[in-house]
Structures are given as C-alpha cells and as structure tokens.
C-alpha cells in the first residue's frame, strides 16, 4: 500500500506542478481513439495536430504569447469512453475548444451528451457520417472531413460536366449508398438534369437484368451506380454490357477496386466509367506546405486524415486568435469567420502572417492542406474529390475534380 500512497502523492504533486507550469497556456482538447480499433490511424492524426501546435508556438503562440496546449482525451472509438473523455476535457481541463474525436460514433455521442449543452466548439478531423450534419448543434459542431453525402454532389457535377442530361440511377439498399444516391438525385435535378428512373436494389443477387430492363425506360444516356463492387456493382455492369442496356457508368467510391477492371475487362470499360473518391489535392500549395513540414518530422503526409488533423488544429488556433480571448462562445463564432472564402489567404505554416493580419483587423481565409475548408451552413466542408478512370495500363488512373 506504500507504493499506492507514493503514487498518489506524486500524482497530486504532478497535477499542481502542471497547473503552475502552464499558467500562460490556452488548452484545446485533442480527442481521438488513441486506444481501440483505429489506434494506428489516430497516432498519425495526432502527429498532424501536434505539428500545427508546434508551428504555432514557434511563431509567437496565441494572443499575447500564450502557448497552445493540446490535451489528449482517449475516445477509444467507443461512445461510452468518448462521452467520458470529452466530458473531462470540457469540465476538468477547461479546454476552450475540441479537435476530434476521430470516429463518427464517438463524435456523435460526445457532442450530443457533452459539448452542445456546454456550448464548446468541436471541429472533427475524421468523422464523415451524414448524421453529424442533422444534429441541432447551435452552430458548435464543425468538421474538416467531408460528409459522405458530398460525394453525391461530386458525382452530379461529373455527370453534368460530361454533357449528360438524362441519367438512370440505382443504389444498393444500405444507408451509405442510399445517402449518396439521395444527394446525387437532388443535386443533379438542380443542375437541370433529368433522372429518368431511380431504383433501389438488394445486394448479392445473381442477376440484375430485370431491374436494369426497367431502368432503361425514358431513354437515359448513362447509369449512375451507388453500390459496393463485390456485392452488386460488378454484376450490374456485366448485365448492362451483356444485354446492351447501358454503356456509360458513373459510380461512387464503393465501386472503386481493381477487381472491377479485372473482371469486366479494361477494353470494355475504357472511357466509359468514372468512379469518384475522397482525396487530397497533392499539387496544391497548401498541401505542399503541410506535406514538406510533416515529412520533416518523419511522418507520412498521405496517411488518412493526417492533413485534416493539421487543418483542424490550425483553424481552432486561428479562431482563438480571431476571437481575441479564450472565450468558448466567441471562439465558436470566430471559426466561421476565419474560413468563409473571403479575405487574405493563409496557408499551413503561415502562423506569423495570420497573426499579423488578424492584429491589423483584416479578414483571413484559411486554405487548408485537406482542401479549402470553407464551412457551409451545417459546419461541413465540401472536401476534395478525385475521379478514377481506366488508364492505358489497365489500372485505375486518378484525376482531381475541381
């Protein structure tokens, strides 16, 4: 028991020491599934967040030289653990805002149970579930990771740009694909296109001939498929080609796999299929600035959501700077102001420049490593998408959508 006592004494001393040492720091919660099913991904995302923190502190820190301190909270990708961890960040650590949590479920529970009632801004770097959009959040929940639903918009733009006015669509009856399909239909109609037929299909059927037969009514020029390649997508394309029903295909990322080309044949698909996918614009100056700095720390800038983790942290810091104080309510309002597409462009790493612009009362517009990061009315970003087409070597060739 002596050991326990010693531990307790050390802990108390440590707690007091920590408070004293960081008296001039501003705390932001860094919530994520540090343990749990995506621990490896989160370790790199946290590195992205920490890079932003280090750059900010190296270039003058926040406000009057206060250090930005990122306090880790382990959401473990489990709603129970997330509510507990985020609750501690808000109530015990007294953070002014939160970056994270990583998983959509953990985010969903912790914002509803803790941060929305407390009025603390949450900026998630990797929650993509559309259900986060529908929350009544008093404008406190933001994310720099695009909602899955935005892919529907990306495909609609792609079809429209290809000059196709009449399209048939079918979706696998699961909420991921159904969600993207719904957005596609709305957006395509808004662009003046016509959806000639729209039909849900059950996955894992041996044939989709009868469904496709129905879908040809009304003279569509192409078909948009929202499905997983393995459970129905490949069969749908096969049936379409065999029976000469459809020759041009558009699809969401559930269809993205090399086996689609391998099973149907590159010759049959070349020039006739386009598959969208969330991506980063690797040629963009903002991405380059982040990637160079991140590589220098020994980490991989292409790791999933690492760029988003960097952006979320940088934006939270900009919001604190813009708010002019560590006031939770002001920070949540300032988050919109620093990235609304208006004002002087600030890129990753340009903290000193941003600080000066804000001090001079100028508007700034953060252009992030993960995309432009401009929030819509729900606090979502539209993200960056790429399109995959069949390349000369019989593999997918990726091209960025602008």
């Amino acid at each position, binding site marked *: 028991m002596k050991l326990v006592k010693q531990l307790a004494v050390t802990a108390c001393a440590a707690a007091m020491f920590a408070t004293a040492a960081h008296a001039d720091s501003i705390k932001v919660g860094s919530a994520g599934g540090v343990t749990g099913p995506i621990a490896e991904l989160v370790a790199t995302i946290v590195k992205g967040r920490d890079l932003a923190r280090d750059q900010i502190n190296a270039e003058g820190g926040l406000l009057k030289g206060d250090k930005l301190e990122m306090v880790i909270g382990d959401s473990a990708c489990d709603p129970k653990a997330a*509510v507990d961890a985020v609750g501690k960040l808000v109530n015990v650590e007294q953070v002014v805002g939160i970056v994270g949590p990583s998983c959509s479920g953990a985010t969903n529970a912790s914002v509803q149970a803790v941060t929305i009632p407390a009025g603390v801004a949450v900026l998630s770097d990797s929650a993509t579930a559309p259900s986060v959009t*529908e929350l009544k959040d008093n404008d406190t929940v933001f994310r720099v990771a695009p909602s899955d639903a935005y892919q529907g918009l990306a495909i609609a733009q792609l079809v429209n740009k290809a000059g196709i006015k009449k399209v048939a669509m079918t979706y696998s009856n699961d*909420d991921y694909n159904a969600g993207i399909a719904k957005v596609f239909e709305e957006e395509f109609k808004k662009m003046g296109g016509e959806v000639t037929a729209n039909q849900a299909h059950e996955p894992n059927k041996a044939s989709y001939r009868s469904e496709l037969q129905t879908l040809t009514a009304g003279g569509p020029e192409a078909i948009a498929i929202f499905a997983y390649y393995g459970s129905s997508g490949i069969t749908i394309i096969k049936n379409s080609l065999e029976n000469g029903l459809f020759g041009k295909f558009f699809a969401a990322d559930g269809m993205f796999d090399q086996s689609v080309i391998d099973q149907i044949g590159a010759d049959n698909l070349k020039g006739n299929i386009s598959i969208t996918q969330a991506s980063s614009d690797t040629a963009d100056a903002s991405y380059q600035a982040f990637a160079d700095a991140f590589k220098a720390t020994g980490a991989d800038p292409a790791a999933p959501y690492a760029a988003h983790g960097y952006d979320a942290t940088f934006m939270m810091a900009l919001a604190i700077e813009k708010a002019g104080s560590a006031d939770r309510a002001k920070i949540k309002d300032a988050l919109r102001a620093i990235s609304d597409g208006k004002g002087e462009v600030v890129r990753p790493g340009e903290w000193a420049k941003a600080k000066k612009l804000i001090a001079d009362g100028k508007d700034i517009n953060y252009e992030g490593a993960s995309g432009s990061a401009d929030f819509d009315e729900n606090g979502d970003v539209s993200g960056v998408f790429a399109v995959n087409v069949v390349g000369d070597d019989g593999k997918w060739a990726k091209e960025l959508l602008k």
Partner: protein
Amino acid sequence: MDPVLYGYMLYGVSLLTVGGMYAILALGLNVQWGFTGLFNAGIAGFFGIGAYTAAILTTNPHTSHIGGFQLPYIVAAIAAMLIAGIIAFLVGKVCLRLRSDYLAIATIGLAEIFRLIVNNETWATNGPRGISQIPRPFENLPEPINQFAFLGVVLVTLAGVYWLMEIARKSPWGRVMTAIRDNETSAKAAGKNVETFRMEGFVIGCMIMALAGALMAHYLKFVNPQTTDPLLATFIVFVMLVIGGSANNKGAILGAFLVWTLWSASEIVAPRLLEAIGMADAGIRSAYVRIFLIGLLLQIFLQKNPQGLLPETRPSSPGKNSS
C-alpha cells in the same frame, strides 16, 4: 460560480451518473455470479439489447432505422427488460445446463452474435453508423439542472433495484440460490429444483443489465455496435463486482462507483504523472500506461483482498433472532 469549480461539479455529476449505471449492471451480475454462481461473460449482449430497445422505442421517426414510436421512457425500459428476459430464457434453456466455464464461452458467443446482428441488420439499426438523437429524460430543463435530474433518475432506479435485490437476498429464494452456488448436489437433495432456480437467477440478472443499457442509451444519446464493446461493458463489470465484494449488493454498488471513478479519473492524472517524470509524447502514451496502472492496482488489491471490500454476509436464518 467559478468556472473551474462549476466544471468539477459537472464532472462529479457525470461520474455519479455513469457509476450509477454500472452499479445497476453490477447488481445484475451479482444475481448471476454472486448468488447463483453463473458465469455470464456476455453482459455486453444484454446491455446492448436494452440500449437498442430503448433507442428504437423512444426516438423520432428516421429514415435510417426502424422506430419512430416515441414511447415514454418507462414503457421503453420495461420493454427492454422484457425482451432481454425472453432472450435470456431462450438462451438459458440451451446453455444453463452447461458447466460454469462452458456457460462463459456460450455467453461470450451470444454477445458477439448480438453485436454482429446490429452491425449487419442495417434496415433496423442503421448498422455501424448507429442510432442518433436518442432523447434523454429532463433534457429540456436548463443547464445544469437537467444533468442533476438525470442523475436523480439513475440513482432512484439504482435504489429500486438494490431494494428489490436485498429483499430477494434475504428471502428463502435468495438462500436457495447461495445453496446452489455452494453445493448443487445438496440443494438437489433438499428437494430444490435447481434448474428452475438457475433459470430465474439468469433471467432476472439479464433483465437488470438491459435496464442499465436502456439508461445508458439515454445518457449517451447515441448507440452503435461499439457501445457493446466488451472491455467497458463486460470485463469492467466483473472487476467492479469482485473488487466491491461478490455476493454483497452493497459491495457491488461500492465497487462500481470506485472502479469507474478510478478508470475515469486516471486519465486526468496519468499524463501529468508521465510529464512530471519527463516522458515524451506523454498524452498518447498515458492512454496505455493508464490501462496498465489500473491493471496493476487491481492485481495488488486482489492479492491482498480476495474477498473484496465488503465480503458476503449471510442473512440470518429464520428461527434465529433476526435483525
């Protein structure tokens, strides 16, 4: 009020709320493991049945899952217990004849099956994306009164379950249960129908676990398959019961509050500890060090104190002067 003090107060409320829900889970397990000697390693499954039933019955209509019944909380909680009870009965029919360790394997399997069903039957449960916007009792009251009010709901429920379990423990039924646990053959020889009693213990325990699950769904306002992850829904409950004192209802409650507080508060202390000794990346590492430290503390405790904090006390037999 000073914002720091206010924050600590709210944290205290959340510790008691979650601790209270775990105490209900521990009381449910106590009926099974403590009194009847049934090794139910599938607590997460029955907890999940309760959480999902309450979620589906109380939420507003939504396109992504069945539901939209908007039933009152109490009706949903009763339904959660009934469904868990029926499933426990069916499982018990098959599994309760198994000896203790085989029952553990069967119930672990059952919890996994439940998790896979909610993960895959997307039409009903929205699959891995879970059910969101679950209402919580008293949430429309102003902050922070609503949090105190929900804490009240949890504590009143806990008190009710405790009261019923104490009556059960002191009754002849409770004595038969401990008799079966300690010596099944002699209980049989005394003319007791062992299988029926074991079934009763199993079903009642599972119903109590489902009640805790229903409360948790309202507290989190969200459920997904991850909510039934066994670490924080099965194993921690065993630790709570064993630390507090198996076969002692007060012990189960004490253990639940104590272990949950230790689990939760260690996240505040661990990174500061590592920072004080100068470790790099203290934040990330402390998440693992914390789990190790808790494991170590439990080992030390159980070595010194295998009976738990509050050991079992047998109710006085009828005939002797009762207290």
